[in-house]
């Protein structure tokens, strides 16, 4: 290791990195997403996926769902910082493994091939609530909802059916049972 002459301490031990889903309720106003996302980018953390939309048009509240990886200390720090933002109302977070929470992503697949292959493709999607949104004799667009890793898998496996283009959302989350966040 080359000798460091930095003015700061060398990094200590790093905590274990886990995937966390952070849910934030914010005022739906200009710049609010930049404020939320800035807390991640300002610390050099990547956001794996992001889903945001207004959920209460009367109160102008949007719900932001962010998937990110970080050590527990970092996630705690980001949550506390999020709570300090003026337009933020509420913050919740889960680990991806959390059994009490449902995570879902949606994807649109465009296949360009022959009808035989396209049929096979739709069939292969069966487990993931496929909806045929558009169909011509050379192409089709299929909507699926699934977990991130399932969509990842489909994206690879469906190449053989003529998968040409994918558009997907970030994960959204909801607790199971009667509990409300």
């Amino acid at each position, binding site marked *: 290791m080359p000798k*460091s002459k930095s003015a*700061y301490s060398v990094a200590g031990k790093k905590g274990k990195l886990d995937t966390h889903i952070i849910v934030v309720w914010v005022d739906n106003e*200009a*710049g609010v997403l930049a404020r939320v996302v*800035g807390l991640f980018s*300002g610390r050099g953390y990547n956001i794996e996926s992001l889903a945001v939309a207004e959920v209460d048009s009367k109160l102008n509240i949007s719900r932001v769902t962010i998937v990110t990886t970080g050590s527990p200390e970092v996630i705690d720090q980001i949550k506390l910082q999020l709570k*300090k933002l*003026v337009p933020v109302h509420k913050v919740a977070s889960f680990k991806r493994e959390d059994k009490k929470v449902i995570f879902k992503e949606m994807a649109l697949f465009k296949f360009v091939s022959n009808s035989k292959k396209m049929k096979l493709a739709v069939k292969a999607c069966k487990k993931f609530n496929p909806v045929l949104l558009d169909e011509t004799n050379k192409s089709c667009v299929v909507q699926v909802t699934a977990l991130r890793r399932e969509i990842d898998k489909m994206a690879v496996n469906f190449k053989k059916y003529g998968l040409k283009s994918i558009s997907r959302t970030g994960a959204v989350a909801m607790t199971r049972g009667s509990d409300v966040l």
Partner: protein
Amino acid sequence: MPKLFTGAEIVFKCLEDQDVEYIFGYPGGAVLPIYDELKNFQSIKHILVRHEQGAGHAAEGYARSSGKPGVVLVTSGPGATNAVTALTDAYMDSVPLVCISGQVPTHLIGTDAFQECDTTGITRPCTKHNWLVKDIKDLQKVIHKAFEVATTGRPGPVLVDIPKDIQFQKTKYTSFKKINKKLNGNSHNYFNQKDINQLIDLMKKSKRPIFYTGGGVINSGPKASELLRDLVRSTGFPITSTLQGLGCFPGDDDQFLGMLGMHGTYEANNAMHDCDLMINIGARFDDRITGKIDEFSPKSKKVHIDIDPSSINKNVKVDLPIVGDVKQVINSIIKNIKKTKPNFANSNKQNISKWWLQIDKWRQKKSLNYINSDTSIKPQYAVQRLYELTKGKDTYITTEVGQHQMWAAQHYKFDKPNRWMTSGGLGTMGYGLPAAVGVQVAHPNKLVIDIAGEASVLMTMQEMSTAVQYSLPIKIFILNNEYMGMVRQWQELLHDKNYSESYTAALPDFVKLAEAYGCVGIRAKTPDELDDKIIEMLNTDRPVIFDCLVDKQENCFPMIPSGKPHNQMILGPEDEKDNKITGKGKALV
């Protein structure tokens, strides 16, 4: 039909309702409507600076010395970007600032118009919150909210960006009644009786306790410092303070161990390392304080009292977090001690007597000592003489950043809060001179001295012109060693004496420079004449630039060297030889 007011008028009506007396600013195209209204609001005085950064630092000095929020008024584009350093500085050191910036008219936003920049985008990470006002009806609400955000909880800077067309538009104004919400109101207290009981339990059991206090005590108001003194005396525990906390406990008190951290005293750092109970009050475990974090105070239970929940466990994991306003937490602790153990300090004396003996041993090292000289002025000596000659005068001290700042912190003893204004978090060279301007505006009849370095002070020297314009008799006390001293020191200790670009080969003649600005220049060259010259400075009721020619090679000790924990400090030139910094250690300075 109610009377309609323009946006520019509403800005001033809001400032009036917020009891603002002074604003620090610089006019320009996009704020001209606001400047046009200035003449109609006699209760608000405008201080014209020479650079927007100066406006920001002056407002910081005003805020920190008075406890009121500082108000800055700048134009769009370069006006706003010039203020960014000061906003960031205020953000790091938790200073309440309200910056109002002009913006190009709404329809031109996003067109790369003349003097346009994305002000809210640029200042987002360096303010607590910012607003771009796009509807005149929001203006009043936004400005009052801005004051609330800046001054409540952990204070900090905010920015309100007002497009020029909004400044011209008209709407109603409903007079704003300040709800009797005090600075740092109850809404930020999350602690309960259980936490306090737990703390008192720890205090009773502790054999080696220490209070570690910071700027949070000052931000909580003068009452917090009073309560802290009461608490420290009613426990008999030793106390150390961060750079920002100086003044909340008397610097010459026996229970005070001096400042801690990289250039803190031997006794303070060793006590932090060996203690069994650390009670952090309003400090944030900054890296200049903790040094190597893995070996920071390994044997102690740590209690952290802070108003900001995100400060807890950020750098150091603590055993008992107490989230609340310092003043109210201390008050609660004192009440409980007085109720359960009215004579705690005496009954506990035996318990911590060994600890005090140990501390006295560390004190014997006299870590702030230096080798004085008959021929050249040692910078430490200059600060000591300045202290001795001004200590009865309720003096306000600001500093720039570097060696002189540390010497000032070590050798100038404060006994009141809000008397010490220095850039700690961001470390902004050029802070002290404009800050002194702001302090003098807040306290026109008090002695205000900027202990400066010749390199730092040149960064914002133009504000001397502001001081002269408003007859602000600030004293700029320059410890002139012709080097960027702290850079030079690190190069000497860590970079094999390769003094790369740290020497200023051409400096202005500061005495002539003072004359050019229309103030007074004084130079001291030898220790013999130093006292007389300082007295001459103190007797001048105009702004003074004092050029104190000091030893060029002097290093700032004691110092926690690289790669070492708190209990292994370098004490001075002699000790340094035995403690040579090597290898991996260089990373940690």
